[in-house]
């Protein structure tokens, strides 16, 4: 499981683990039914006290993101977790910031970008609305 601990931004380690697992599940990188690493394994991987992992898994369980199976391990629950609006905003804003920075580098204005976003969206809608036969026709 791809989790990175950052000790410079003041967020506690267990909170970082909770947030990143939620993100992995919400983005589909962790699938429902998939097993999370055992506590010992993740503690060894991240070099953190095992009790921190226990605390993080427990909080994920309360939030309904994962569930424990007796005698087995911890598994991702069915149904994507509902990330809080603030969290969803934060994730998407990171991407927007990166996009704007790159746009600036490549000499696009913000209104160029907004127009291009709408165009891309329209193109996507059109493609998915097209019957498969037409798409195949175009691909030839």
């Amino acid at each position, binding site marked *: 499981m791809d989790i990175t601990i950052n000790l410079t931004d*003041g967020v506690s380690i267990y909170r970082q683990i909770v947030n990143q697992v939620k993100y992995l599940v919400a983005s589909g990188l962790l699938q429902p039914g998939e097993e999370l690493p055992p506590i010992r394994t993740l503690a060894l991987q991240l070099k953190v*006290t095992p*009790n921190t992992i226990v605390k993080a898994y427990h909080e994920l369980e309360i939030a309904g993101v994962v569930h424990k199976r007796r005698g087995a391990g911890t598994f991702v629950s069915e149904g994507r977790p509902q990330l809080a609006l603030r969290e969803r905003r934060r994730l998407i804003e990171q991407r927007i910031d990166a996009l704007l920075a790159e746009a600036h580098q490549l000499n696009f204005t913000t209104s160029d970008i907004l127009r291009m976003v709408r165009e891309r969206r329209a193109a996507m809608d059109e493609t998915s609305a097209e019957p498969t036969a037409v798409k195949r026709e175009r691909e030839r």
Partner: protein
Amino acid sequence: MSQSVVDVHDLSRSFGDKTALDGVSFRATAGQVHGLVGSNGAGKTTLLKHLLGLLRATIGSVRVFGLDPVRDPVGVLGRVGYLSEERELPEWMRIDELMRYTQAFHPTWDASYARELLETFALDPSRKIKELSKGMRAQAGLIAAVAHRPELLILDEPSSGLDAVVRRDILDAIVRAVADDGRTVIFSSHLLDEVERMSDHVTLMHQGRVTLSGVLDDVRGAYRRSRVRFVEHFDRPPALDTALVMEGSGRTWSVVHNGSIERFRHSVLARGGEIVESRDATLEEIFLARAGRSRPQVEAA
């Protein structure tokens, strides 16, 4: 309520006219990792030596598993694994002799665990201790400390002067002791990132006193670092309620503060400022605020 494995109450100790410990109280709860932080000479090693009965409590009391480690060394030391800061090991022995020697004191010695660690560390059992590098000495000392699967593992500056590979071995041993056996660990370190990663509880010592102690997440949650902007220009940090450390100049200052955020906010407003940004402080920021040599020179109130 968790069971306490170590109970130190109001312990003081002087060497000549130098005070090493000044009214120290410390408690370690079962199954948890306790990080002990402080600069050199803060008293960490002196405290740990009291837990092992290497120093007798003259003022105050020390209990390990409810026993006095000086009066009942067998009852305490048989259940404790210890890696000393200087890694004192019998120089004339070979590694396999050290293993047999240590085993003789500990009926609970797990020979297959010891062998596994020797292999992991790629240590040659026939090597003499005195010929070992610093890293290898730490590894050999670590095996001697953990292979009897002690109920309490005490590591004094386990990573000091070691490269990243051996440091990782040490941290792995702590994780295993806790995850596999539910053991209690006390380790001292001046590496704050290590303490923050590995500790459930953290105790900060400064000049022989405990200046801060508690569950790491609670300690972290009690301190914040805020960026503050004022209308007025200040040559010296303006006095603010609950502020511990201030850095900056002119109109913008970074402040580490603890306790009530409302009180802090009020105080900032009263000086004609606003909080621009605020987050939990890192352990390093808290450490510097609590053990900093120089208190900030605040303007006269």
